[in-house]
């Protein structure tokens, strides 16, 4: 409950700070629209040559891309402000500030700063999903929407875990910044994993779990998923959190702070 109150307070304060700069809002909207627009044009070009992409139709691919955009917005809003150039914070000893506060250090470290303007991207993603649904021309049962929302929440958790895990590597190798590498891997999520051949598909499912982040939630909305896959996704999310906790506790033992 305390963490929820803290999150709400941090978000409200960050939003207040962001709203003070009108030009930032305008640029964020324009950038998000340009990024989403160019990607959608790419999808349209691909489907002008074929009816299926890895077994996915046009409207399904649009829904998948919308899901990907929503998660990108969540990543940008809640996670990136905390972990971007994380290795520099490790080197400068700036983890001290979260270690002396009476709240879970992992929470403060990885979710303690927000950039609310990133949610513009998430809203655009939601609009794209709605457009994909309208393209299908079919009626979508409500339960599919609920399962999609549940899997979207799991995907957000997995996104948070993987991004923070990548950042925490700098506790072992302080000079290593893998931000760009993560961003590159993240881009695989805009297309269905069935598009890739083995062993890339295996890697994108179990090593860089792009499948659980975008493909599975989008599949839940377009065709539904089996209870087994839903359960596996929930279990995967839970295991991911446990792994993150273990890695954080282990990495913390290596943290030596910095001199004054």
């Amino acid at each position, binding site marked *: 409950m*305390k963490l929820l*109150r*803290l999150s709400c*307070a*941090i978000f409200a*304060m*960050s939003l*207040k*700070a962001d709203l003070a700069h009108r030009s930032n809002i305008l640029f964020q909207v324009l950038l998000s629209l340009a990024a989403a627009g160019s990607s959608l044009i790419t999808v349209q070009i691909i489907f002008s040559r074929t009816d299926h992409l890895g077994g996915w139709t046009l409207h399904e691919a649009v829904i998948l891309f919308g899901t990907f955009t929503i998660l990108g917005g969540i990543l940008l809003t809640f996670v990136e402000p905390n972990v971007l150039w994380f290795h520099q914070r490790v080197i400068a000893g*700036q983890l*001290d*500030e979260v*270690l*002396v*506060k*009476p*709240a879970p*250090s992992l929470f403060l470290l990885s979710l*303690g*700063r927000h950039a609310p303007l990133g949610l513009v991207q998430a809203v655009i993603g939601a609009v794209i999903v709605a457009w994909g649904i309208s393209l299908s021309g079919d009626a979508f049962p409500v339960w599919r929407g609920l399962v999609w929302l549940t899997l979207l929440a799991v995907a957000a958790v997995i996104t948070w875990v993987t991004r923070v895990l990548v950042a925490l590597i700098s506790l072992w190798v302080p000079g290593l910044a893998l931000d760009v590498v993560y961003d590159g891997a993240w881009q695989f999520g805009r297309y269905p994993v069935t598009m890739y051949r083995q062993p890339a598909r295996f890697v994108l499912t179990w090593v860089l779990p792009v499948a659980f982040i975008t493909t599975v939630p989008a599949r839940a909305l377009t065709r539904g998923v089996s209870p087994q896959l839903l359960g596996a996704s929930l279990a995967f999310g839970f295991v991911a959190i446990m792994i993150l906790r273990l890695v954080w506790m282990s990495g913390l*033992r290596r*943290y*030596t*702070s910095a*001199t*004054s």
Partner: protein
Amino acid sequence: MDRTIHVHHLSMTYRVPVRQEGLGAALRSLIHRSYRELAAVDAVSFDLFAGEIVGFIGPNGAGKTTTLKMLSGILHPTGGDADILGFQPWKRQPAFLRRIAIIRGSQPIGGPVELTVMDSLRLQQLIYDVDDRAFKRNLGQLNAMLDLRTLLDRQIRALSLGERMRCGLALNLIYRPEVLFLDEPTIGMDASVVETTRQFIAAYCQETAATVLLTSHYMADVERLCRRVILMDKGTVRYDGDLRTLSERLSPYKILRVSLVGAKALDLSSFGEVDEAENGTYDIRVGRRDVPSVTARLLADFPVTDLAVLEPPLDRVIDRAYRTGVA
């Protein structure tokens, strides 16, 4: 007095990689790495009691900051034990963290800089579970002592260093910690901010009976705030006791500052070593035991307009302690 901090044989040893110079040695170290044990803090022991402000001094690399970080729970020691308010610091229990604060002059505010000072204070209120009534009361008191009125609605990123320190103190004291670790609290500040900060620390401790462990390279901070000092060097405690006693032990002399009628230069070397002479005012080094007799002779032999007996500057005393050690 209640004991608030008990430190027993606290140690921190780092395993640091070493290699010989040259490219060959660098290549060999890829396969066969050599390490050396480096004791940053070596079996340090001391006690602090409620309401004490203790100077924690020593040259760079003495182990002061490492000790503070272990006592505030940031670092896990490699040996020894510590008890602060009944807690082992490195377990970082919320009940412990709510009762301590570590304030670093080099980084007085650690949180998001785009927030206003008031928003940051509200965030602290939530994190430290301060109820509204206590928050308003504490903020009122801090406001009176630190004059925060014009700063509360400003973004932290736009504050000057002095303003950041004032706000950093407010952020760390809004929940009324009982133990303060102050690491170079006046570093880089101008003279007026330094004095304000010192006055504030003294006033806060007097009002709340907080226990303070203060590191500073400015001996004026230590002289102004601390009766007791712990002197560290190479990771060990070299002296723990009264500041005046340390001064007496290391400086077996006092300074007689005497002003004489007329600006004509006089030879006063028969009274002691003359440190400085300017416009008829002389600083003469005199052995502690000889002060009464030399004072009497000066008063009898010269037309004295002013005379003061001073302790030697603490900076020189401590410098001597760093260079030659404490006997």
